[in-house]
């Protein structure tokens, strides 16, 4: 029931997700941050069960930190996404993680930003815009209409705000607050949508 969606431009990427933790018929909290910052230029928005979401993203973050200590540099977005996919796929037939992810990051080497869509079975695909969960039904068309090649960061934020408005209008589940994280060449910024 978690909503997460995002949009990727040439040198920026924004991921957004709702902040509610729901349990049976009520909401336990309204301010849960479901977008984890993996390292200086990478973020991952996860949707799914809280325990799997936290355990998986935490494990990835710590393993990437370890890789950084061992090799001396942060891996690029593609390598990070492939590493995360491998871990998810390996666990799939033993103790699967019920998480769907959007991985976004900025590559310092060529100055471009990339976004990857990954589902709980280990399907990985590079995308320019994407969504997970029920939100996808509402938000994919809005993103399709508002995306243009080489759009600016402000246009991207406006597009996501339209997505949030659509969810608040039509989605049966009440999700009052949304958090968005933006990755650019300056690192990660947080904003409320």
């Amino acid at each position, binding site marked *: 029931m978690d909503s997460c969606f995002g949009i990727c431009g040439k040198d920026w990427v924004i991921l957004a997700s709702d902040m509610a*933790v729901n349990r*049976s*018929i*009520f909401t*336990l*909290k309204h*301010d*849960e941050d479901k977008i984890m910052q993996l390292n200086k230029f990478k973020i991952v928005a996860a949707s799914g*069960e*809280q*325990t*799997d979401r*936290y*355990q998986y993203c935490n494990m990835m973050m710590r393993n990437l930190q370890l890789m950084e200590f061992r090799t001396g540099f942060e891996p690029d977005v593609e390598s990070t996404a492939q590493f995360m996919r491998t871990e998810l796929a390996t666990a799939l037939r033993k103790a699967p993680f019920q998480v769907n992810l959007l991985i976004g990051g900025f590559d310092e080497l060529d100055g471009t930003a990339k976004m990857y869509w990954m589902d709980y079975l280990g399907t990985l695909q590079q995308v320019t815009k994407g969504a997970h969960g029920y939100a996808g039904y509402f938000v994919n068309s809005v993103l399709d209409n508002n995306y243009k090649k080489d759009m600016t960061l402000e246009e991207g934020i406006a597009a996501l705000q339209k997505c949030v408005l659509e969810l608040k209008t039509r989605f049966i589940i009440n999700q009052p607050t949304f958090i968005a994280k933006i990755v650019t060449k300056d690192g990660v910024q947080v904003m409320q949508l």
Partner: protein
Amino acid sequence: AIGARGCGMLDCLDYSVSRSEREAQAHEALPMELLNPAPLLPNPHERCPGMEQHIRMVHGTTTLAFKYQGGVVVAVDSRASAGAYIASQTVKKVIEINPFLLGTMAGGAADCSFWERYLGMRCRMFELNQKKRISVGAASKILSNITHSYKGYGLSMGTMICGWDETGPQIYYVDSDGDRLHHHLFSVGSGSTFAYGVLDTGYRYDLTKDEALSLAQRSIFAATYRDAYSGGTVRVYHIDEQGWKRISETDSMELYYKFKDEKMQ
């Protein structure tokens, strides 16, 4: 056990009669079982009738905890029910892990009390190894890692680990799914919706100590009034910088008459 779910273990193997017919038979059988004064032990050949299949209300209890300017207030009821039978009205649902940490109990009594005692041991080991008291976040993480590793094996617990550490008052909700949530206000159990009603309307961060304790007591009482699986005595604890302290233990019937008299005036 608290909030026991007597589930039919063998129904997945029985293909002889259609499922709806069997369920109808089980529902007809229910009234006679209710009249039986002895405790209902789960019969593996019977279905689990009705409610639990539709609403996953596992924890037959009401517990709550919230943070305010003066610390943390924890309040619980004390009823243990096995189906329609009240097994006990005097269960201690707050587990004293160490003088600065409290854990609440909802779900399986054995699971909660065993693992919270184990957590107490791990917290003591931490103190001996690190020469400082464990933080509430670390303690709750130890417990949530345990529950995550036992995920799917049938543990049933919904607990709140509350305490005061160097970062101030903290409450973490940990449950048997492996979830661990940090927030300023939680209520767990079958009566939690009723408790939330009173708690959400009366809660402010800048409550005084007396107001906070009274709010907690009222919230649990509201739940015991409406929820069949909550009742007994309402116990209220307070946690401040010096540690936890048990403030009051009042029977819910006494509270009913007290609030009724207040309304009359």
